C-alpha cells in the first residue's frame, strides 16, 4: 500500500546523536562532507572508515538499516568504479586488452571515488536522515539561515512552508490511495494496457488530488488566520532549539575526529 512509504527514514533509537542539537549536526555534516572530498590517502580512508563505524555505533543504527541505506547506492558506486578504472590512462599499465587499459592510478582513483560516494551516503544518514526528524531539520535550517533575514530572505516563511508540506504528506498519501480505489471502481486502470491508458488512469487521480489540495490549502489558510498567525515576527516556540553541554561535547569530539582525519591525510600525502 501507498501508506507504507516512509519519508526521510528516521530511525528512532534515541541515541546521543539523536538528541544532539540539529544545527550542530548540520554543521558537522558539512564538515564531514568537505573532509570526505578532501582526503585521498589510503591511511585517511581507513581512519574515515573507523570514524564512520564509531558514528554508526554512537547513533545505535542497526546493521540491517545501514545495509538498506547503502543497497540502492551500490549500482551507482560500481558504475563510478568501472567508469574510472577504464577512463583514467595515467600511471603504469597493469593490464590491457585491445584498446582497454587499466592503470594503477586508475584503480586507486576508482576505489577512492566509489568509497567517497559510500561514505557520503553514510554521513548523510548518520547526521541527518536517520537521526533527525525532517521537522527538526527544517527548524535547524531556519535558525542557521536567520542571519539572511537582514537581506530580506523570507527564512521563517520558507521553514513554515516546509513543515506544512511535511505535515500534509501522510494526509495526501492517504487521499491518493482513496481516490485511486474510487477511480478503480469506475474502471480506471493504472498498471495494465498501453502507456496511454496508464497515463489516463493517473490523470483521473491527479486532477482530483490537485483540486482537493487547493481546497485544503484554502481551508488551512483560513484556519491559520483564525489562530492568529501573523508571520514570523514576535512568534515564540514551544520547543526552541537549545544547545546543551552534552551537545557541545559531541560536537567537539566529532570535530576533533574530522581534524584527525584531515591530519592523517596531510601526514601521509
Amino acid at each position, binding site marked *: *500500500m501507498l501508506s507504507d512509504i516512509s519519508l526521510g527514514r528516521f530511525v528512532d533509537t534515541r541515541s546521543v546523536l539523536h538528541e544532539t542539537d540539529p544545527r550542530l549536526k548540520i554543521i558537522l555534516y558539512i564538515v564531514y562532507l568537505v573532509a570526505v572530498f578532501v582526503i585521498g590517502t589510503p591511511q585517511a580512508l581507513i581512519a574515515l572508515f573507523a570514524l564512520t563505524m564509531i558514528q554508526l555505533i554512537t547513533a545505535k543504527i542497526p546493521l540491517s538499516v545501514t545495509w538498506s541505506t547503502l543497497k540502492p547506492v551500490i549500482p551507482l558506486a560500481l558504475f563510478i568504479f568501472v567508469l574510472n578504472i577504464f577512463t583514467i590512462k595515467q600511471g603504469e599499465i597493469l593490464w590491457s586488452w585491445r584498446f582497454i587499459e587499466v592503470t594503477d592510478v586508475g584503480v586507486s582513483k576508482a576505489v577512492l571515488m566509489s568509497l567517497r560516494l559510500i561514505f557520503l551516503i553514510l554521513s548523510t544518514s548518520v547526521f541527518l536522515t536517520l537521526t533527525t526528524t525532517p*521537522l527538526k531539520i527544517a527548524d535547524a535550517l531556519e535558525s542557521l539561515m536567520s542571519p539572511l533575514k537582514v537581506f530580506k530572505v523570507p527564512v521563517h516563511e520558507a521553514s513554515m512552508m516546509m*513543515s*506544512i508540506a*511535511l*505535515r500534509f504528506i*501522510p*494526509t495526501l498519501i*492517504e*487521499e491518493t490511495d*482513496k*481516490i485511486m*480505489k*474510487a*477511480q*478503480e*471502481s*469506475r*474502471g*480506471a*486502470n493504472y498498471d495494465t494496457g498501453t502507456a496511454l491508458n496508464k497515463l489516463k488512469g493517473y*490523470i*483521473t487521480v491527479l*486532477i*482530483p488530488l490537485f*483540486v*482537493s489540495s487547493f*481546497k*485544503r490549502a484554502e*481551508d*488551512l489558510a*483560513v*484556519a*491559520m*488566520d*483564525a*489562530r*492568529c*498567525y*501573523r508571520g514570523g515576527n*514576535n*512568534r*515564540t*516556540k*514551544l*520547543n*526552541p532549539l537549545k544547545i546543551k553541554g552534552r551537545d557541545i561535547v559531541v560536537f567537539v569530539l566529532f570535530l576533533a575526529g574530522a581534524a584527525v582525519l584531515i591530519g592523517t591525510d596531510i601526514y601521509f600525502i
Partner: protein
Amino acid sequence: MSDAISVKNVSFAYKTDEGQSLEVKALDNISLDVKSGAYCAVLGPNGSGKSTLAKLIDVLELPDEGTVCVLGNTASDESDIYAIRERCSYVFQNPDNQIVGTIVEEDVAFGPENLGIPNPELRERVDEALKYVGLYDLRKREAASLSGGQKQKLAIAGALAMRPEVLILDESTAMLDPVSRDEFLELVEKMNREKGITVLTITHDMNEAARCQRIFVVKEGKVAMEGTPSEIFSKPDVIREAGLELPADIGLVYELAKASGKVIREDDIKDKDARIGAAVRYAREAKAVPKVKQLKKHENTRKILEVSDLSYSYDGGKTYAIEHMDLDVYQGEILAVVGKSGCGKTTFISHLNGIVRPQSGEIRFINEDNSVLTTSRKKDIAQIRRKVSLVFQYPEYQLFEETVRKDIAYGLVNMHAPDVNIESRIRGAAIISGLSEDVLDKSPFELSGGQKRRAALAGVLVMKPQVLVLDEPAAGLDPIGRREMFDTICALRETGTTVIIVSHNMDEAARYADRIVCIKEGRKAAEGTAAQLFESEQKAREYGISMPLLYEFSSKVKEKLAKEDPRFMMMPPLPDPAHEAASIIRGVLSC
C-alpha cells in the same frame, strides 16, 4: 449577563474574483445576540448563511453593512481583529485541514506561539489543554496518525490553549462517528460549564441542537426563529419549512399528539421525562389508529452475492481487519452494514467488487443464469466491477472531468460497455440521482456540495450496477439532502437494484434498511431486521452499536404504558415516528 456576541443588521455578499458582489446575499440584515456563557446552536439548511455568520463573528470576513461586536470589540479596524481572534476560537469541519503542526503538542502550541506567549507559560498552556481533552499521552505522536475524533479533540485543545472566551464550532462534528461525536460534545459542554466559555455551534444534527440552551434557526440569510429547544421544536411546521426536522423522540411525541387531535406544547418536550409523559398521555387520548402508508417490505428473492469465510489482515496475520465473515445478500434488498469506527466495515465493502482481493475466503457474484463470478479469479474482476459498484465516503472528490456529462460517462466508456446509448444512460442516471439537466454541461467543480455528491453518484449509476455499495452516502449533508439521498436509494430498490449502505446513523439504518448486518472487531456480530437487532439496549451494546434514538425512547414509552395497564399490547418497534405512533395507539386501543 452581558452579550458575548452581538450582531446588528448585518448584510454580507460574497465577491467574485473581479471584486463584484454576488447578487444573492449570504446574510441579509441579520441580527442576533448571544449572552456571555451561553451554549447556542445555529441551525439551517445548506446555503442558509450559517457558516458565513460564524466567519463574520470571528472576523474572517468583514460585513458589508451593519456591525458585529464580539466581547466588546467591534470588528472594523485592524487592531481589534486580533483582539477578537485571540479570545474567540474557531473549530472547523474537516479535522485534517486545520492541523498545522506535525506533532500533536506543536499543533496545540501554534495559536499561543502566534500570540508570542513565552515559555514556561506556553508549555503550561499546552500541557493543560492536552490534559483537558485527554490527549496528553499522545502529545509526541504525529498528528496525521490520530483518528478523526482525536483530531477534532486536538483542534479543541488548540483552541483551549488560546484561553478563549468564545468558541465557535462550524459543523465540527459532521465528519465524526456517533461515539466520537458524543465525546466531542461532552467535552464542549464541560468547557461551557466549567470554564464559562460561550459556545456557538453550527450544526445539521437536530439531536445536537436539542442539547443546547438556545437555538437560532437561520434561513435565507435571516434569523427565522429563535428560542429554547423546546420552544423551537414545539413548532414542527416552521421547522419543516426551514428545511430541518424534529429529533426522533420529539417526532414520536408529535405524531402521537397529532393522532389524538392535539398540538404539541412546549412543556411536553422540555426534558426527557416530560417527553415520555406527554407521549403516554397522547397515546391514551387517541381515539383511532391513524392511517399510515404501508411499509414496503422486501420479498425474499434470489441470492446475488455470497461472502464465505472471508478474512483479511493488513499486517501479515497479527491482527485481522476482517475475520471469518459469512454473508448472503439478496437481490433488490437494502442492506445496512453498521458497527463502530475501525470495526472493519470499509475493508469489508472494499472486497465486494475486488478493490481488495480476499486473502482467504471468497466473494461470489451469482448471475441470473446461476453462473458464478468470483473476485478470487483475476479475469472475473472486470466483469464483477460492471455489476457491483462501490461509492466511498464523500465521493465528490472523484470528479475530475471538464463537464459533469463527461464525468458521469467516464465509467461507462471505460468499461467498454458495447453499443449502449451513452447519452440516454447519462440522462437516466442524472434523473435518478436528482441532478437537473442544466448542470450536465457545467464543470463539476462549479456545483454545490450536494450537487457534487449527486454527480458522483450518477457517475456510478450510469453503469447500471446490480449491486450498489455506498459508504456513508449521506455524510455531511443537511436534513433535506439526507432525505433526498435516501429517497434515491429507495427508488433504486424499486428498480431491483441491491443497495448495501454503510452507516453510522442507527435511526437511518433502522428506517431504510430491510436487513442490518453488524460487524464488531472484524467479525459478524449480528444479522437481521432492525427489530431483531435492536430488541433490547443490552443486546445492542453487546454488538457494539447504539440504539436508534426512536427505539430507545419508544421502548420507555411502551414500558410506561404497560406498567399502567398490563393489557397494553407490546409490539416490536417500527423504524419511523408515524408508524411507531400508529403501532403504539393500536396497542393502547386493544386494551
